[in-house]
């Protein structure tokens, strides 16, 4: 706190913070300051406290959210704008113009100026202004996030905080959002939390890395951090450019794919779909001409937001009404309950599938008592907890996990039974590098042992490195894209 204190716009000194009722401190004497005009990227493993730190720096904690905290000194921006992870929970009004007007009203902008100001803001984030009275419910996720940015810009914030604004978006939406941010950020102070760093790493001028214990382990320019601290980054499981080549262990054995025909004798696919469609209401949201899933397949389901990827998975679980032929090992597929005995399923929104009070019980729930002894069950759960980095959280309620932790738990509940087929809806989004690779490795092991995996993903790296097949969904129709087999 010596030189240039005047151009510090946000800072915190010796921050101590813990959630009510928790034993351990999330932050212990951590200090960070942000200068005017700086573009700072905050990295760290999942659950280390990045979202919490943003809320402290922006003044939401403790002004709005009461979390016990103390610090020696703090500079809180007079006006800070914050964009959150989830596009659906940051609006209070139902229409785009009303939402922006809400912010303008807060700033006492005269009514006569509002319409033109709303138009300006929409143009700034690249949204169409043909009809400013646009229902938010009908916007795509990417559009919603851009609207969120517009509503934050309406405040003319001193510092703009972005908490994984693209976590739920497809490639196109991600690009649009980052383009928007680049356009508006010329003189803007930015603090960004993001796992998917490829798009932005060249546009930031400072990177701060947090460890799992909430300490700063690296702070500096991008090149310095990524070169000097590579070891530490990889250890803590933080994404950095080139991490894929260094850390992932992609599929090497083709053994299973080849033994298909022989191993099962018949050559019948594990799952077979023909003229198959899934319906919401009366209209078909997904149509499959013909598709097959064989043991040892790893199918990547890709496509834009709203293309019908989740609908395909739900239909394959018979959770939507379906038409056409669908068979499992040559026999007509039965009801959802019957399918669930063979297929492990993880929803796009993990929270809705939790049924137990603790993380441990949640996992035990997936193991039928009839099939496993108590010790066996316990051992398996313990192993799973360690593999997914949840071992210290085993007594916590599933709702009290960070986003990434919840998702890992939901994947774990699907995998723990080692079913014949796994249907996973975006299992890796919001994950740090360490957990992504652990998960991919475990999936690869299962696959090599004969499990078939059908996985929705927005990540091209995963598709190229792991998948044996690609199903591309376009406007509700499946297009089959064979992957060049890496021979």
């Amino acid at each position, binding site marked *: 706190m010596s030189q240039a204190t005047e151009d510090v716009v946000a800072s915190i000194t010796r921050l*101590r*913070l*813990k*959630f*009510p*009722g928790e034993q351990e*401190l999330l932050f212990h004497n951590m200090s960070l300051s942000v200068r005017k005009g700086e573009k700072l990227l905050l990295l760290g493993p999942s659950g280390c406290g990045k979202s919490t730190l943003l809320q402290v720096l922006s003044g939401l904690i*403790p*002004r*709005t*959210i*009461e*979390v*016990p*905290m*103390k*610090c*020696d*000194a*703090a500079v809180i921006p007079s006006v800070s704008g914050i964009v959150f992870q989830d596009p659906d929970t940051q609006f209070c009004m139902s229409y785009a113009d009303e939402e922006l007007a809400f912010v303008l009203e807060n700033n006492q902008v005269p009514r006569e100026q509002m319409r033109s100001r709303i138009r300006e803001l929409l143009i700034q984030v690249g949204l169409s202004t043909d009809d400013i009275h646009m229902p938010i419910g009908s916007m795509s996720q990417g559009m919603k996030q851009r609207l969120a940015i517009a509503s934050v810009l309406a405040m003319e914030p001193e510092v703009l905080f972005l908490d994984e604004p693209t976590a739920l978006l497809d490639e196109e939406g991600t690009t649009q959002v980052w383009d928007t941010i680049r356009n508006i950020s010329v003189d803007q102070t930015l603090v960004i939390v993001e796992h998917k760093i490829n798009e932005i790493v060249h546009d930031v001028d400072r990177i701060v890395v947090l460890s799992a214990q909430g300490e700063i382990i690296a702070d500096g320019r991008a090149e310095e951090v990524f070169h000097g601290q590579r070891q530490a980054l990889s250890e803590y499981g933080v994404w950095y450019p080139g991490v894929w080549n260094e850390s992932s262990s992609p599929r090497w054995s083709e053994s299973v794919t080849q033994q298909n025909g022989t191993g099962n004798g018949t050559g019948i696919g594990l799952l077979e779909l023909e003229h198959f469609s899934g319906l919401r209401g009366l209209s078909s949201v997904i149509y499959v001409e013909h598709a097959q899933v064989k043991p040892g397949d790893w199918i990547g389901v890709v496509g834009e937001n709203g293309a019908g990827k989740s609908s395909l998975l739900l239909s394959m679980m018979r959770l939507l009404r379906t038409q056409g032929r669908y068979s499992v090992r040559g026999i007509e597929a039965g009801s959802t309950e019957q399918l669930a005995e063979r297929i492990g399923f993880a929803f796009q929104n993990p929270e809705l599938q939790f049924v137990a*009070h603790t993380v441990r019980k949640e996992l035990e729930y997936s193991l039928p008592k009839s099939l496993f002894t108590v010790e066996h069950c316990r051992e398996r759960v313990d192993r799973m907890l360690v593999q997914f980095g949840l071992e210290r959280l085993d007594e916590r*309620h599933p*709702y*009290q996990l960070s986003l990434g932790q919840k998702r890992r738990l939901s994947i774990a509940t699907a995998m723990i039974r080692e079913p014949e087929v796994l249907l996973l809806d975006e299992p890796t989004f919001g994950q740090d590098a360490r957990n992504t690779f652990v998960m991919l490795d475990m999936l690869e092991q299962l696959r090599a042992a004969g499990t078939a995996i059908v996985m929705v993903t927005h990540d091209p790296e995963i598709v190229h490195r792991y998948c044996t097949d690609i199903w591309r969904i376009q406007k509700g129709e499946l297009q089959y894209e064979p992957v060049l087999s890496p021979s």
Partner: protein
Amino acid sequence: MNTAVRASKGLKLTDILVTIVIAVVFGLVYKIWGPAYDLMKPFGLHAEQLMYGMWFMAGTFAYLIIRKPGVAILAEVAAATVSAFLGSEWGMSTLYYGLLQGLGAELFFAAFLYRNANLWVASLAAAGAAVASLILDFSYGYIDQLSTWNYVLYIGFRMIGSIVIAGVFAFYLARALEVTGVTRSLRPATEQDYKGLD
């Protein structure tokens, strides 16, 4: 710098929004409960009165979650407003019933100075809401003009139903919700939590 916990004047935005959202959930439940209630009614033996307590649940439940003055009234009024917007078959009268029932429950919470949120207080508040609704029923529904046995049955069933649903059931539901930890961030942090920081 210590955390500036402002002496909060009235309810905070979070409290209000959470209360109203709880009320909306119940408003949706009422949409299903209403027709069921009406179907029970024509038999005349007032079996439907055992179900009446559901209409007080928004108030007691919201209080058990937030535990602040005014929450019970707000929740009841909000639930009534929502069901009115959804086209309630009782129309505008729901607003008055909501207001009075909320008030009935609120009085009991206030009597315990908003310090208690146990099963007894919840049951008393449920009974309070029931009494308030009965007061309105006297003038709007002429219940005193029923034959005596019927009238006693009516009041008795309503009281029992209210205590069971809006008191006991609401209490256990709130406790089950407590386990999930979502309510923790609604309560002010304790001294002890702050001590743990040093």
